[in-house]
C-alpha cells in the first residue's frame, strides 16, 4: 500500500491502527492573485476512515469540486496537506464515456492504463459490467445506452481502477428520480461488497442522508467544514422515508443559516 502525501508543507506520515485512509489537514486553496484572488477552501480538516461513506454537501460554489480535485491530485493545495493511503478513482458528474469505444472497451481502457495485462482484462471487464448490472450491453456504444446505463459504465470504470478511495462528484445529478434511486441501491451494494471508501459530493441533502455514514456540510466562500454529522439510520435507507426527511430538513436549516449569514 502506498502513502501519498501532497501539500505546500513537508509531508507528514500518518500511521498506526485506525489510521485514516484519507486525511486533509488545514487545506486551503486560493485561485488567482491580487484583486482577482478567490479563496475556494480555507483550513479544511477532514478525516475519513477506511470503508466510510462520506457525503459532502454545500451551496454551489462552496468548493466541493475543488476539494475532490485536490484529493485526486488534479490540483495542488495552496496550504495544508492531503494524505491518501492508496489509489484514488474519480467518478465525474458527466459519465464522460469515450464515444468511439463500446461499454466494454471503456472499462477495458481503465484497466489497460492501470497496467493490467491483456490476459486478465477480459474476465475482469466482464465481472465489472455484471457487477453494475450491464450484462448483455457490453458491446453497445455510449450513444446507444440510456443516461442511467452510461453512469453505470462510468461506475464500472471507476471500480476498474482498483482504488481504495472513490471520489464521486454529483454523479447522479442528471438522472431522473427513479433511475437515481436505483443507482443509490447499486452504489450502496457495491460499496458494501467491495469495502470501498467513498467521498460523494452532492447538492441534494436527502441524497446525502440516504447514502452517507457522515454528512459534511461545507460553508461557501471560503469553503470550510461547517458541520460533520454522523447518520446512524439503518441501511438500506429510502430517499423519501420520514427519518431521512427529518435529518435532511435539519441539515438544510443549518446550511440555510450559513447561506443567510454569508449573504447578510
Amino acid at each position, binding site marked *: 500500500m502506498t502513502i501519498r502525501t501532497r501539500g505546500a508543507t513537508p509531508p507528514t506520515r500518518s500511521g498506526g491502527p485506525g489510521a485514516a485512509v484519507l486525511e486533509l489537514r488545514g487545506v486551503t486553496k486560493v485561485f488567482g492573485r491580487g484583486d482577482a484572488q478567490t479563496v475556494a477552501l480555507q483550513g479544511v480538516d477532514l478525516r475519513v476512515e477506511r470503508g466510510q461513506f462520506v457525503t459532502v454537501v454545500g451551496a454551489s460554489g462552496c468548493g466541493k469540486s475543488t476539494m475532490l480535485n485536490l484529493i*485526486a491530485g*488534479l490540483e495542488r493545495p495552496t496550504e495544508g496537506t492531503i494524505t491518501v493511503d492508496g489509489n484514488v*478513482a*474519480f467518478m*465525474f458528474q*458527466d459519465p*464522460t464515456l*469515450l*464515444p*468511439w469505444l463500446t461499454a466494454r472497451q471503456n472499462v477495458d*481502457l*481503465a484497466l*489497460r*492504463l*492501470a497496467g493490467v495485462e491483456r490476459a486478465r482484462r477480459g474476465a475482469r471487464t466482464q465481472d465489472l459490467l455484471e457487477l453494475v448490472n450491464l450484462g448483455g*450491453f457490453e458491446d*453497445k*456504444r*455510449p*450513444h*446507444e*445506452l*440510456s*443516461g*442511467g*446505463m452510461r453512469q453505470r459504465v462510468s461506475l464500472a470504470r471507476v471500480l476498474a*481502477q482498483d482504488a481504495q478511495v472513490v471520489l464521486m462528484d454529483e454523479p447522479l445529478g442528471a*438522472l*431522473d*428520480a*427513479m*433511475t437515481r434511486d*436505483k443507482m443509490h441501491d447499486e452504489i450502496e451494494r457495491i460499496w458494501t461488497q467491495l469495502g470501498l471508501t467513498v467521498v460523494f459530493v452532492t447538492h441534494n441533502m436527502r441524497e446525502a442522508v440516504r447514502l452517507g455514514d457522515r454528512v459534511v456540510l461545507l460553508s461557501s466562500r471560503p469553503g470550510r467544514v461547517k458541520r460533520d454529522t454522523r447518520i446512524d439510520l439503518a441501511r438500506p435507507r429510502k*430517499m*423519501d422515508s420520514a427519518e431521512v426527511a427529518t435529518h435532511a430538513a435539519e441539515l438544510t436549516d443549518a446550511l440555510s443559516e450559513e447561506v443567510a449569514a454569508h449573504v447578510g
Partner: protein
Amino acid sequence: MSADVLTPIVDDAPVRREGRSPGSRIWGWVWPKLMAIAIVLALWELLYLILVTWTGKRPEYIFPAPATALSSFWEMVGTSRFWEYVATTMQRAVIGYSIALLIGTLVGLAVARSQALRAGVGSLITGLQTMPSIAWFPFAIVVMGYNESAITLVVLIGAAPSIANGVLSGIDHIPPQFLRLGDVLGARGVARYRHIVVPAMLPNYVSGLNQGWAFAWRSLMAGELLGVAGATLGLGNALNAARNMNDMGKLEAVMIAILIIGMLVDGIFTSISGGLRRRRGLTIDR
C-alpha cells in the same frame, strides 16, 4: 410521497434503432447523385439548344451536345491511352498527397503542443491555405526543375496546410472532460495520444484530409495544365492537348473524367467520416 415517484421510467431503456438493409443504403447513396447528374445534363442540353440550335451563336464543334461529349467519353474510356493518363495523374496525386499527409500531420501535432508555435505558425498555415497553390509553380519550376518534383512540391504545398489545420482544429475541439478523464486514468505521454487525443480528433482530422485532397487535386490539375510534367502525360496534359487540337468532344470527356475521379475520392472521405460519426452517435439515422 414526493412528486418524484410519479416520474415514469423513461431513462433506463436502451435506445433502439432500426437497421437498414445494405441495398436500401446503397440506393440512398446513389439516387441523389443520379438526380444531380440528370439535372446537369438537362441544363447542358438546354444551353446547347439555346446557343447552337436556336440562336446559332456557337457552332456545333465548339459547343457539342451532352450526347456527343458522353459518347466521346465512352470512346475514350475504352482506350488504354486514357488509363495511362489516369494512372500518371493518380500516381502524382498519391505521391504528393502522401508526403503532405505526413508533413501536415506532424506539423499540426507539433504546433498544437506549443503556444508560441501556435500563435506564429498557426496563422502562417492559414495564410498558406488561402494562397492559390498555382502561385507556387514558377518557384517550383525554378527550384525543382521542369519535372515531376515540381508537381509533387506544389501538390504538397496545396494539401499540407489543410491537413495541419485539420489536426489543429481536431485537437482544439477535444472536449476538456476527455483530457481530464485521461489524467484521472493515468494516460500520459504516448498513451494519452493513442487512447484519448488521436481518436478524439479524428472527425476533424478526416475533414482536414478531405479538404487537403481537394486542394491537392486542384494543384495537380493546374500543374498538368501548365505542362510542367515533361515526358509522361496526365489528365491535365490531355486537357491541354485537346484544347490545342480544338477537339471539344475530347476536352469535355477529360473534364468529365476529372470530375468523376474527384467525386469518387471525395466519396471515400465522406464514407469514412460518416462511419466515424455514426459509431459515435453524432448522426441522426432516418
